[in-house]
């Protein structure tokens, strides 16, 4: 049997949690029965580490500087590799690293760190500097917290230690540790301007391909303002006053639900988990916001907006629905997308015949179950080969997964759509659903699949696989 060797990178096999306290509080509202997040198994191609996860969460704070304290590779292998877009500052795109070498490993890198922070503060004048620990600096016992603390006092801007070295566990744990850093050092340290209208924090929306902007436009049309973006296309300052928001919407529950829960208990901000994939989920999320804001007029505006948008969308989707009706898809993604994209696909007439569950919380799985039929196969473990097996067995027409399953799908000649962090298309909101419909159609209808599936004219043997 082929196995998970092919699964790659970021959104991949999920993903152990090594700290027990996270198990009950951040893995969904239902306390998991057994160990919900098994430790990574040695000898498989595991996904990203906690360092990676912490960066993913914080890098979309676009005006801050992000400094990696460690050997060159942790920065050298990772800088500027996610599709999280900025509408303004781009300091976040710079790859800053202390580049520790063997003598630093022996004598310590704290001096180097201190001087690096000073240099960045002087040259780039960021509103804050995030400093990431790595395996090496954690193992040699660097006192990063102390260096950051004295540096912050010296240079007069926040210098925030992010203690999430790779070896503590999965990418997912790193997301949460980053959330912890925001709670500890950022949220509640600032106040909005007196006249700033307060509204909703979007938590766990990273503005991949600009999706956040579509969402904001919708919210604004209904009169709902975004207080803080945590952290898609964010500015440092807006996160400092996140505690003044009236509602928290958790867009990616797997990553930052714990943050929303903590903000509820600390600041009394109600939260809900929602999504913007598909018209139904989008409408639900907007309604939920208005409801929790406790503003009747806003609710009425939301109703008018969603009715109008849904009607227009349904008109616009007509030609696509005709083409997509009855098509079968295998969906392999995690978190909020695992269930909300099912909704979106159903609205397009596409049937999900297989769905990945190993990166989903129990809540997510329950939501998946609510949305799919009995004959949908759950894919509990990672790996493109496992997914491809499902595609074959369930006679799926298309595979919807992360960008790095793509190359295996291509080898197997399976139409593919990238749904994860490397996608270049925004699928959120009503317009996003139209884009999704268009991308599905293009992917399915491209002439290359016919060409790829037919043997060379002089090769009489039939193609081994006839989909």
């Amino acid at each position, binding site marked *: 049997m082929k196995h998970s060797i092919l699964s790659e990178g970021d959104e991949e096999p999920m993903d152990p949690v090594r700290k027990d306290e996270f198990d009950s509080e951040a893995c969904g509202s239902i306390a998991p029965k057994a160990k919900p997040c098994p430790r990574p198994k040695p000898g498989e191609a595991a996904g990203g580490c906690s360092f*990676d996860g912490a960066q993913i969460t914080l890098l979309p704070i676009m005006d801050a500087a992000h400094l990696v304290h460690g050997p060159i590779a942790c920065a050298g292998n990772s800088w500027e590799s996610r599709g999280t877009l900025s509408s303004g500052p781009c300091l976040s795109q710079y790859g800053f690293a202390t580049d520790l070498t063997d003598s630093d490993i022996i004598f310590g890198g704290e001096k180097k760190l201190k001087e690096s922070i000073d240099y960045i503060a002087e040259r780039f004048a960021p509103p804050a500097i995030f400093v990431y620990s790595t395996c090496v600096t954690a193992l040699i016992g660097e006192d990063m917290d102390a260096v950051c603390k004295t540096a912050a006092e010296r240079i007069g801007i926040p210098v925030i230690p992010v203690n999430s070295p790779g070896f503590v566990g999965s990418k997912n744990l790193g997301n949460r540790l980053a959330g912890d850093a925001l709670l500890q050092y950022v949220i509640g340290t600032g106040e909005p301007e007196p006249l700033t209208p307060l509204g909703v924090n979007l938590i766990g929306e990273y503005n991949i391909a600009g999706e956040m902007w579509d969402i904001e436009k919708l919210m604004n049309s209904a009169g709902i303002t975004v207080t803080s973006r945590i952290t898609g296309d964010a500015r440092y300052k807006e996160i400092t006053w996140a505690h003044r928001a009236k509602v928290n919407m958790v867009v990616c529950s797997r990553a930052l639900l714990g943050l929303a829960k903590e903000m509820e208990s600390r600041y009394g901000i109600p939260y809900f988990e929602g999504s913007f994939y598909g018209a139904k989920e989008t409408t639900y999320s907007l309604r939920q916001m208005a409801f929790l804001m406790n503003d009747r007029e806003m609710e009425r505006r939301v109703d008018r907006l969603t009715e109008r948008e849904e009607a227009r969308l349904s008109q616009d989707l007509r030609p696509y629905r005709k083409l997509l009706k009855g098509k079968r898809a295998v969906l392999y993604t995690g978190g909020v997308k695992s269930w909300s994209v099912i909704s979106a696909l159903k609205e397009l007439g596409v049937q999900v015949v297989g769905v990945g569950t190993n990166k989903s919380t129990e809540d997510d799985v329950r939501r998946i179950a609510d949305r799919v039929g009995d004959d949908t196969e759950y894919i509990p473990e990672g790996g493109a080969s496992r997914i491809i097996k499902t595609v074959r067995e369930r006679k799926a027409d298309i595979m919807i997964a992360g960008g790095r399953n793509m190359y295996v799908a291509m080898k197997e000649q399976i139409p593919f759509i990238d749904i994860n962090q490397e996608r270049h298309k925004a699928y959120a909101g009503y317009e996003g659903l139209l884009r999704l419909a268009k991308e599905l159609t293009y992917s399915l209808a491209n002439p290359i699949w016919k060409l790829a599936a037919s043997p060379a004219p002089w090769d009489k043997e039939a193609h081994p696989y006839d989909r």
Partner: protein
Amino acid sequence: MSKDELNIKDNTSLFKEERYVQQRENKKQFEAPCSEQETAEALAYSKSAEYMEKNFNRQNVVINPHKACQPLGSVMAALGFEKTLPFVHGSQGCNAYFRSHLSRHFKEPTPSVSTSMTEDAAVFGGMNNLIDGLENSVALYKPEMVAICTTCMAEVIGDDLNSFIGNARIKGVISEEYPVAYCNTPSFVGSHITGYDAMIKGILSYLYTRSGIESKPGSGADSGEKLNVLLGFEPYTGNFAELRKILAAFDTKYTILGDHSGNYDSPATGEYEYYYGGTKLEDVPQAANALGTLSLQKYTLKKTQEYISGTWNQQISALSTPLGIKGTDQLLEAISELTGLPVPASLTEERGRVVDALMDSHPYLHGKRVALVGDPDLLIGLIGFCLETGMEPVHIVCSNGDVDYNEVKFKDEAEALLATSPYGSEATVHVGKDLWHMRSLLLNDTVDLAIGSSHLKFAAKDADVPLIRVGFPIFDRHHMHRYPIIGYQGTLNLLSLIVNTILQQLDDNHSGFNFELVR
């Protein structure tokens, strides 16, 4: 359905719309509290000569690095051998980075596994992870060899691979005969090229030692006619094909030691295999009996070359990446010398055709000022190519110099090469510098072209200089790696790439009267 029946914009055009522009403006209230004028002044300052000096005095922080780490090179090296599974001993994220990095460049899957060390391994050592990892991966992926490299974490806690692998055998997880090669590759030392070297040497020495064969260079019954070829950390699958074409023209037998082109250029057959191509394991010990060894990246392959000339007692011709006419001439002479075969007429003819092409384009190349970024051997090749076309290298940045070969350091060789031509007189070679240094160089002393990896695109954009993508990694263009850049054919490819970029620029920047049909 017509493509534009519904006008759904992508993010390139969508966010140019007025409402999004407005949204961006509104967000400025959250941004750094300085005026547009101050921002403009700061930006202008960052482009000044005064700042460049400060930038070059920067000691501690690296900004926009241009190197990857040792184990990334080791993974690529391991994929050069038949049915070999790269195995990264350390925490899980490193492996995920290597796989996505390599896959983004080649647009192909990268099979590689990790021991996924966590906190308890940090305290008690990673032996159990390694033993379990060997058991699991051999059962799941059925490799014929496992090639283990270490990461920072394993090195800092001092894991002993040799004894761990021994213990895995004692425990019966793998048999006594099962081949497991390894090397130590902490990323706080060296770069991807030293890691590549460490793994190639690790595999060659391991397979040779366990075979019990005694090297008799040039004297084996059949293998004595063979030539060993090493390409090094080679981001171009097309270069393997080009070299095979050249060796076929010579009609010599050869063994490529470390050929990952199969894994990174496999056909779409409708079924994915784990392992494509690669050097046959049984060919490796036989390589000790070869005529001699040709190495195409002498700085990259330093330790491997030492091993081959020392232990295998073999004649070595160590070149840098053979780019351009002269670089290729050297390659052909080296093959000719090692094999005793004359340079075939077909290659001489090809040479003439490419020289002809260079002549056709020379008016557009002459005097073009060029900035170069890359690994040491690639840069030596590129400098040579520039000099023979009349292009003038101006800024040369090599983050992972100064590797030395036979006590000649990269910087010395690069400067000596530049000194051989008047076109090299303006050049400075910066070793250990990063792309933020390069940005200062580009802004203060402007050039016509930048040549380097995709990572250079930010600095090139700031300086408004067109970027010719050459080297590793190339994430943002497709199929570059499928075309060779070595040999005469590669020279032609590189020439077309450069001259056509220049011609496109002429068309883009015309002022009306010079929008000409014939160039």
